[in-house]
Each structure stands twice: as structure tokens, then as C-alpha cells.
């Protein structure tokens, strides 16, 4: 009886709609999961079995790609460590910068907010381009071959994220709460840190995850600005590794040593193993922040 009471009674036509929706959702889920499964199986395939293309169930299994990675573990772990440091520092800095930028833009009593919002929006659409920014960062700020190369250019603050946080502040935090805090004697820093930020957990999680993913996957900064191998992040290292493998495969194979080296190297499976290794931390973190992330995407209403 108790079970029946809790059941949702579906109206005529609703049941059919639910079935159709379920089928569509399952199909979409399959489309999302298939590439991941393929990536995993390819990384566990022997190199020979990949000659005729990727398969979900390969002719022969092999751990060569992972063994190859394991042989390079010292470098890989260092790169991992650097990536984690950059991602953590970058994400925190990015969240602080973004929310601190968004807060005054959400305040009705901040007169120049529209002008600043326009400038922000303008730079989202138009910017100086690659060459100009490269010159600015390397010659003016001298970030070449420093950790700042990963943190600062184009990643520290994103106009779109500022807009999202500002909209969240405006739509979800009643202005009278700010006024109440002002009358309680709170200054802007207290209002921002004790009220606005704690009340913005969903959007902060969303922005934080996007930002963290951006830092984690950022290999272009390394390619542009980093020459010192000790400053390679995991993505940069893997990119360089791929390039080296590609180089060995495409150079003159008349040299016997090169030929030997290239034959023993896993290529396709290594690519996928690399992708799997880079994906592991993200997969580990996601379940813990999933709830807040979805809430943030719904209220932010733009991304997702």
C-alpha cells in the first residue's frame, strides 16, 4: 500500500512520452560513452591489431602502451605534479578574480558597471590575436619559460565566466540581503566573502570545473611559451611525446637504429593511453561535484 501511495500516477499519453524520452536519453548516453570505451580498448590493444582500424574488441590485447608510459614514469609524474599545482592555483585564482570582478558589476549602486560590462563584453568578441598577445606576454611580462605562462595568458579570467557569475548574483541573491549586510556594518569585502561567495556555490563549482578543465587540458600555452622540459605539464609532455613518435615514424627509416626504435614503439595505443592518463583525475573528481555542477549549469543557464 505504502509503495502504491508513493507512485506517480501518469496521465494518458504521459507514459508514452516517458518511454520515448527514455529511449532518446539512452541513445544520447550511448553516444557519449562509446568514444570513452573505444579509447580504453584501443589503449589496451596490441599495435598490430590496430593496423586495420579501431575495434571495440581487439584481436589481441596488450599493455605495451602503459608499459611504455611506465618506463617514462619519472618525467610523467613530475609533469603530473606540475599540472596539479597549476590547475589548483589557477582555478582558485581564476575563481577569486572572476567572482571579484562580477561582484561590483552586480551592484546597482556601482555607477560605471555598465561601461565596464561593455568593455568586458567587447573583449570577449574582439581581441588582439595570437601574435600581439605573444609579444605582450613575452616582451612586456617576460613569462616565457616560467610557470606564469600556464597561469596568466587567456586563462586567469574569462569574460564569459564573469558574465555568468554576475547574472547568478543578480538573479539568485536578493539585493536586500546586500543592503541588510551594509546596515549591519559590513564593508564590501565582508559582503563579498561572507555572503556572496558562500551563496554562490553552484555557479562557483561550475565555473571552477570549467576553469580546472581549461588548466588541465591547456597544452597550447606550453607549446607557445615553454622550452624547458622541466616545466612541461602532462598535456605538453604527452604532446611532445606524440610528436616524437610521429617524428620517428616519418623520418628516414634506412637508419637501422631508427627502424628498430620505431618498430618497438606503440603509437596508436599510446595515443589513447595518453588520453586515458590525462582523463583519470577528471573522472575521479567529477562524482563529488556533479550535483553542484548541474545546479550551476541550470541557474547559469548558458553553458552545458
Amino acid at each position, binding site marked *: 500500500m505504502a509503495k502504491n501511495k508513493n507512485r506517480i500516477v501518469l496521465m494518458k499519453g504521459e507514459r508514452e512520452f516517458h518511454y520515448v524520452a527514455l529511449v532518446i536519453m539512452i541513445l544520447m548516453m550511448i553516444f557519449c560513452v562509446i568514444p570513452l570505451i573505444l579509447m580504453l580498448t584501443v589503449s589496451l590493444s596490441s599495435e598490430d591489431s590496430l593496423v586495420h582500424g579501431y575495434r571495440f574488441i581487439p584481436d589481441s590485447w596488450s599493455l605495451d602502451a602503459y608499459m611504455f608510459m611506465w618506463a617514462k614514469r619519472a618525467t610523467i609524474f613530475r609533469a603530473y605534479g606540475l599540472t596539479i599545482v597549476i590547475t589548483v592555483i589557477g582555478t582558485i585564482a581564476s575563481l577569486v578574480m572572476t567572482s571579484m570582478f562580477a561582484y561590483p558589476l552586480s551592484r546597482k549602486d556601482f555607477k560605471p558597471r555598465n561601461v565596464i560590462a561593455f568593455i568586458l563584453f567587447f573583449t570577449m568578441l574582439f581581441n588582439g590575436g595570437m601574435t600581439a598577445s605573444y609579444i605582450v606576454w613575452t616582451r612586456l611580462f617576460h613569462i616565457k619559460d616560467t610557470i606564469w605562462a600556464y597561469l596568466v595568458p587567456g586563462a586567469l579570467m574569462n569574460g564569459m565566466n564573469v558574465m555568468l557569475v554576475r547574472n547568478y548574483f543578480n538573479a539568485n541573491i*536578493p539585493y*536586500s*540581503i546586500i*543592503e*541588510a*549586510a*551594509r*546596515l*549591519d*556594518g*559590513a*564593508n564590501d569585502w*565582508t559582503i563579498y566573502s*561572507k*555572503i556572496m561567495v*558562500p*551563496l554562490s556555490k553552484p555557479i562557483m563549482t561550475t565555473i571552477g570545473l570549467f576553469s580546472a578543465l581549461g588548466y588541465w587540458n591547456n597544452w597550447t600555452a606550453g607549446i607557445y611559451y615553454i622550452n624547458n622540459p622541466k616545466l612541461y605539464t602532462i598535456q605538453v609532455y604527452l604532446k611532445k611525446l606524440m610528436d616524437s613518435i610521429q617524428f620517428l615514424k616519418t623520418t628516414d627509416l634506412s637508419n637501422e637504429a631508427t627502424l628498430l626504435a620505431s618498430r618497438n614503439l606503440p603509437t596508436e595505443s599510446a595515443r589513447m593511453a595518453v588520453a586515458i592518463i590525462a582523463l583519470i583525475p577528471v573522472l575521479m573528481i567529477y562524482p563529488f561535484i556533479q550535483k553542484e555542477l548541474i545546479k550551476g549549469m541550470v541557474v547559469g543557464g548558458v553553458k552545458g
Partner: protein
Amino acid sequence: MPDIILKDITMIYPFQKVSGLFDRKQKKLILEHQKQMPYTSNEGVIAVQHFDTTIKDKAFTVILGPSGSGKSTLLRIIAGLERPTLGEVWFDDTDYTDIRAEERDVAMVFQNYSLYPNQTVYQNIAFPLEVKHTPREEIDVEVKKISELLKLTNKLDRLPQDLSGGEKQRVAIARALIRRPSIVLFDEPFSNLDVLMRSHLRSEIKKIHDVYGTTFVYVTHDQYDALSLADRIIIINNGIKQMDDSISEVYNKPLNRFCFEFISSASANIFEDIEVSKDGSFSLCGADYKLDQKQFKKLGKDRKMTVGIRGTNIEIGHSGIEAIVEYAEMIENDLYVHLVCQDQKLTVIEKTNNSDIIKYSHNQKVRIVFDETHFHFFDQEGNRL
């Protein structure tokens, strides 16, 4: 603790400008609508105009007016949340017009509570002391004291979302009072509460005012709140001060017709365009009365006036003018009898028991007597004679 002196306060909210590609049509309509409002200037809508008053230290002052009359704007100007377009705000001998809200030592209780949803009741109440870096032990003592006064002791670890409306408003009051500010402002604090809770909190606020002895300024559109709480009432309409006096003066000698009608609310009966003869006599529903010489002299040349009388000053009895009952209704503990007397609609209020409602039926003939000592006379402009 200071007197609050408002000097010639005028507040104009600028018209909403029509700009941008989207919603242009809608914005234009809003602008047109704003320009048709009764009090507008070239710059915008006038919310408050040329408002002068002195709110006495430690007094319980109620600013009373209908929706959109500018009373909340006035409160926000005192709080420092808005800067007046013209005029000055002084606390005693100091000009506070340009001083920020957080530096004014003013606390406010909002209509929608405005509690911090991420903080517990304890944290909400303690917040004003925390921002002042008060020692933790002192905060504990103060929170305990105020939560006992407002009966919140067993709710301290709850979040605002787990509280009822009345409890939320109690927390808001506790938060406002904990740092013992010089002035406490109340912006229609009971509008979202039911009748029982209102009357309960009303008496609590009155008690708290007696205990704390701070200046309380209370904004409301509810004359019951005003009459039961205030030492002094300021009536405002369309941003203009109508009256500023003690309860008894406001109730017994309203300065104009608006004040009479607003303070009397549903009990106000108005007789329009009453002609007064040369000897000062006039007739209401066929009964003759006489205006005294002082009032008669104030009449205009056309010798026409408006007469007001409250339903509580009309008696239904066995003699007097004949009237016909339309219907009767119980409002709280009073019986409101709606009558028609020579095409004039009247409301008579009787203190009665619930069972008495059946003693009046539709089209029943009754006899009424006006208590002529309680007539209120106004000239054609609405000013008291």
C-alpha cells in the same frame, strides 16, 4: 542617541531610459506610463517632495501612507541606502546626507526578512557584532540575551529556510537590535504575516522599544499598526507630508480629508458637497445640524463642505433617521453594518458578539443616530475646517 532631522527632502527617480536593441517597445511603454504618473518632473518620477520633519530621540514614530506614497523611500534615505535628490539628513548636529549606510549606526528590519540563507539563526544574529570584531564570549552573551527576549533560544542552530515567517521576522529584529544601534528602522515588517502573528509581534515590538529605549521608525500602510505602536504618526501621500502629530491629534483632529479617510480606513463615512445655510445649519440624511461659528467662518463662498464621521460614532437604535440594511459582516470582533440612508451609503460599527450577526438582514429597516460631537468638517479642497 540622536534626533533625526529631515530638511526639505526631495527624491526623484529618473525615468527608465529607452536604449538597446531589445525590448525597445516595452521600455517605451514603461516610459510613457511613468510620464503619466501624477507626480513627475522633467527628470523623473517624484517619490518624495519637500519633506521636513524632526523625529525625536527614543520616540516610536510611525510613517503611515498608502502603497507608492514614498514612505519606504523616506526610510531608505534615513538608512543611507538612497541619497536624496535634494535636501539633507541630519542626526542631531551632524549632516549625514553623504555618509554611507554602514557608517550610520542605523539598523533596519526588512519586509522580506533579508536573512542570510547560508547562516544559522545564531550566525545571522551575531553577524553585526562579528563584523565589528567583537570578542566571541561577548557575542555569545549578547546572542543569548536577545534570543531569550525574542523567544529564539531553541532555534539558534537552524537555517532561515527551516523557520516560519514569524520566526524569521523575529530573527531579523534580533539581528537589528543586537548591536544596540541609535536608530532602528522597520520597513513594513509584518506585511507577510498572518493576523495572529502580526498582533503578537506588534506587542513584542512595543515591549522591546520600552526595554531598549532606542529611536524606532516604523513604516506601514496599516493604520492598526500605526495606532497601536506609535508615539507619533507621520502621514504621507504622493510623497507629500500630510500630517505629523501625536496619535490622539491624528485620530481626533485629522488635518485633511485624506488623513481622516486613511486613519479611519473602512469605518470612514463621507458626505460630499454638503450645503451650509447662512446661519450655519446643514442637513445629513434629513437630520439637521449646526456648524459652529469658528468653522463656519472658514467655509468658502459657495458654503459647501465635506463631512466625515466614523462608523463607531453612529449608533443603531430605536429612534433617529431611518436607514436600510444592505448587509452585515464580522471583522475581527466588530460587526460592520452596511446601510443606505437617502442614497448615502454608510458603515456602522458595533462592538458585538458573534451571534449578533443574525440580527441584521438584507432590506431590514433600522434607525440611526449620528454623534455630532465626532463630525469632521473639511472644505472643498479637503482641509479641516
